[in-house]
């Protein structure tokens, strides 16, 4: 409690550059989140820390910006018929439990192995999840792109078809988006793991969205939209927990929200112009790129723990800066794909109307 109180007194002074930086990162993060249901958060926490914000305040403020952003995004995508509220709320409840357990594990690791041990744990989790899930999502996106040829309906994965065929009396719930009944016993571990991942690497959606797609059989547009409901539930609960310790810097929250609420609306609009595989493509691209970013930091933490030869200061600085730069690049790359998809889609839809009006006016 004493440590937490000390952290709470170190709130940074704000200047124009800090405000502009947080607004911009918030906007880009919101754009990506509105499209794939998650993904902005992993840049914001280290982004805030690079401004001198203590780690706990950065995590707390990030969490407190996440749930209103997710709420606005979910409402927008619900207007487009993309949200399965029942699935999102049930998933969210178990994800919340996963968040609390994940935080408990983090605290134990930090107590036993210190900051370096905690950072190593987070990085290994990043690398494992992003490598396994990210490459699967990317492979599926590329396969879907090749096979799309006018097909709007996505194929349900084999695993999801099996899950939907399992009948466990007393546990079955019908979900509109799945057009099927699924046992809640499949949703519990999936939701719990999503929450644990959110507590560990700040982005539960990297498990939640693929989980909904490949295990439950939700179309990618529905999965990414429903994840916003899950993010809202997790974020609201987590924010209250951190706010109880006085760790939320509402100024940072408001500046990030100023940008991210612009971005999330745009990202949500973008989903109405694309086929499902574009969601997978953006998600896979960001996950694979961030994988390299986190992999660069593993030698640094191994060196700090004395598990490998101590790295000199220059090497550590290069690795840290390289990791941060790749992370920013991942977010910008995702934002670029989303923006391009939106502009291309809008042009294609408006072209016939424009041609007709030009014809009418005799041009």
């Amino acid at each position: 409690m004493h440590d937490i109180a000390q952290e709470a007194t170190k709130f940074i002074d704000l200047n124009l550059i800090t405000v502009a930086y947080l607004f911009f990162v918030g906007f880009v993060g919101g754009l990506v989140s509105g499209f794939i249901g998650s993904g902005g958060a992993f840049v914001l926490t280290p982004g805030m820390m690079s401004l001198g914000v203590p780690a706990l305040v950065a995590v707390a403020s990030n969490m407190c910006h996440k749930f209103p952003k997710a709420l606005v995004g979910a409402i927008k995508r619900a207007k487009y018929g993309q949200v399965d509220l029942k699935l999102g709320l049930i998933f969210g409840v178990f994800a919340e439990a996963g968040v609390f357990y994940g935080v408990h594990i983090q605290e134990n690791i930090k107590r036993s192995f210190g900051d370096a041990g905690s950072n190593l744990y987070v990085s290994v989790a990043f690398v494992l999840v992003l490598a396994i899930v990210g490459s699967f999502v990317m492979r599926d996106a590329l396969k879907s792109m090749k096979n799309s040829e006018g097909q709007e309906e996505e194929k349900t994965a084999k695993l999801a078809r099996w899950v939907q065929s399992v009948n466990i009396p007393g546990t079955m719930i019908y979900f509109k988006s799945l057009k099927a009944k699924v046992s809640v016993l499949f949703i519990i571990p999936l939701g719990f793991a999503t929450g644990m991942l959110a507590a560990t690497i700040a982005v539960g959606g990297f498990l939640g969205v693929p989980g909904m797609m490949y295990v439950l059989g939700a179309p990618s547009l529905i999965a990414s939209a429903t994840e916003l409901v899950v993010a809202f539930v997790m974020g609201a609960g987590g924010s209250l927990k951190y706010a109880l310790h006085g760790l939320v810097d509402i100024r940072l929250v408001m500046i990030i929200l100023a940008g991210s609420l612009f971005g999330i609306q745009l990202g949500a609009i973008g989903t109405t112009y694309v086929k499902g595989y574009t969601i997978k493509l953006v998600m896979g691209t960001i996950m694979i790129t961030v994988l390299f970013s986190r992999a660069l930091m593993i030698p640094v933490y191994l060196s700090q723990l004395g598990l490998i030869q101590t790295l000199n200061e220059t090497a550590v600085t290069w690795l840290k800066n390289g990791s941060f730069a790749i992370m920013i690049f991942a977010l910008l790359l995702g934002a670029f794909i989303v923006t391009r998809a939106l502009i291309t889609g809008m042009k294609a839809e408006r072209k016939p109307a424009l041609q007709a009006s030009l014809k009418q006016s005799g041009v």
Partner: protein
Amino acid sequence: MGTSNEKLKKGRIAKMLGYGALTAGLYTAVFANQGTVMLYFTKGGLFAATLPVLTAFLIAFSHGGFTNYFWQVMGIDASKKKVQQRRQEQEHPVEREQIRPQPRLRA
């Protein structure tokens, strides 16, 4: 048709300005009184914890509303084709093929 489009656009601009004014007021109130706000918002305990959470909800309402109408006024909106298609699918869902074998009573 032209008049109703104009009315719609004016309505959106009015809502954008309304939400914008509310948002500007909220941000001014917080940042003009940073010291006091941070003192109370970071006190800890249950009452103080609700302050940042409630503020975040207020911003979701006001700034969420402003940004929603902002993009509409800029002419950036959802694909009408796809949204209409999805609404039709929801009203007339296609029956999924049966995955589970249906139980049959043998007489």
